[in-house]
């Protein structure tokens, strides 16, 4: 199970992801610089959080032009597993790999705190370690997490995580994480890599990485 973590200029959660995969799960992992075009041997690509390209124009709008992204698209077409976390989720929507868009938080503030989430699907390669209906806690840290799609009914079956109890950013239908129709591309606003060790207050996020390992 080889993980590849794409590093864009402005990524800042790349090392956290690396640490979880390498040190906690003992899985092989390498960084993929955004100008690389070789995804050979990679089983799962992670687009980490951060502020790729300074969030210029719109969050995630410029990263999709990085050379690595055309490879990432092909990787998705081949059925490879892709996880976009926070800014990674924004990049996936901008690149057209996931439907919808992430707009500015309803309250116009950057929000950085734990939220409660409900696991809506545990039949994706990213969530088999959970039970459907599990209420979990993960931190969010974003300014543009207000998920929008003109017709949320169309993706009802693709919703994997919903904000539970309180919707922090105005996301339509409380959506916090979705997969594509095929189920191999996952985008989520919460940061599982920040809650994968007890010492950090929660391990609820680790199950996402464990699910991926189990899937392959």
């Amino acid at each position, binding site marked *: 199970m080889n993980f590849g973590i794409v590093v864009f200029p402005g990524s800042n959660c790349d090392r956290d992801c690396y640490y979880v995969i390498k040190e906690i799960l003992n899985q092989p992992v390498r960084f993929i610089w955004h100008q690389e075009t070789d995804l050979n041997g990679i089983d799962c690509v992670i687009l980490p959080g951060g502020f790729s390209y300074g969030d210029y*124009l*719109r969050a995630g*709008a410029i990263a999709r032009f990085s050379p690595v992204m055309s490879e990432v698209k092909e990787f998705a077409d081949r059925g490879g597993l892709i996880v976009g976390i926070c800014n990674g989720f924004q990049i996936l*929507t*901008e690149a057209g790999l996931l*439907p*919808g*868009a992430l*707009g*500015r*938080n*309803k*309250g*116009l503030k950057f929000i950085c705190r734990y939220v409660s989430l409900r696991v809506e699907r545990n039949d994706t390669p990213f969530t088999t370690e959970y039970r459907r209906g599990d209420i979990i806690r993960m931190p969010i840290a974003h300014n543009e997490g207000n998920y*929008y*799609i*003109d017709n949320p009914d169309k993706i009802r079956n693709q919703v994997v995580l919903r904000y539970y109890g309180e919707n922090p950013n*105005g996301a339509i239908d409380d959506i916090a994480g979705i997969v594509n129709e095929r189920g191999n591309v996952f985008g989520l606003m919460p940061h599982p890599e920040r809650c994968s060790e007890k010492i950090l207050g929660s391990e609820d996020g680790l199950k996402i990485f464990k699910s991926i390992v189990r899937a392959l």
Partner: protein
Amino acid sequence: MKKVKLIYEGKAKRVYSTEEDDKFIIEFKDSATAFDGLKKAEIQGKGEANCAISSKIFELLTIKGVRNHYIERLNEREMLVRSVKIFPIEVIIRNRVAGSMAKRLGLEEGRKLEKPILEFCYKSDELHDPMINEDHISALGLASPEELITIKDTSLKTNQILIEFFKLCHLDLVDMKFEFGKDSSGEIYLADEISPDTCRLWELGTTESWDKDRFRRDLGGVEEAYNEVKKRVLETPVESKTRILIRLKQGILDAQGSVILNALKSLGFNEVLEVRVGKLLEIKLDRKVDEAGRIERMCKELLANPVMEDYEWEWIEE
């Protein structure tokens, strides 16, 4: 757009009606005549060169706010234009002494004029396009006084724009001929073509011709001249600006707009009902008018996120 019927054939062009009443297709021919048809020849590539040159120049004039009949270039030899009724007047504008003016007044070719001179000729092949003045035009009803003002103003403005543009092509605009027409609603358009057939162009700083004089005066290198002008004109960038406005779609909560609305109300501006905040982009480009579709693509593919944003754009005329 298909050609329907040949409605006019001139020395260098054919004009066809189309399926739409308000549009004509102009086809540029390779044939050239001079001295009222006494001298004739086929100049290889002239039609294509003139079509390309005219298209680019009309595009430039559109950017600069000169209303003209050009709509788009259809292919190497044809352009789509607005159908207009041509005034029976040729407008000649001169920046230097040359051609018939030199002959008529016994002046040396090349002398720079203190200010541009406008001349009018009555369009008539049999009469050899005799020169007329503004009184002839109004007394004979060739154009109304208001129309003549528009024609004169447009000619002078176009002359200034083209002097600058040709300078960038390292060419000196010595003189040129315009024709004007009006559409069914009476709007006046600069029409015909603008090419080495209708302009005297000299290599900047010399009296070396890059125009039809090469043919009139048997100077040789006629084909090369048309191609050289075409090359220079096409290579010279035409800068224009477009303003793009991007806003959240109606129906999506514009949180910033709501906060601003409340702030305005707290200052007593109770008449404010709604505030929408957007992004304004000004983009400078080297463009051709027929590439308007490319701005749409820029908006759709990058500048706006069509899932949540609407956009609108306009050319900024100078």
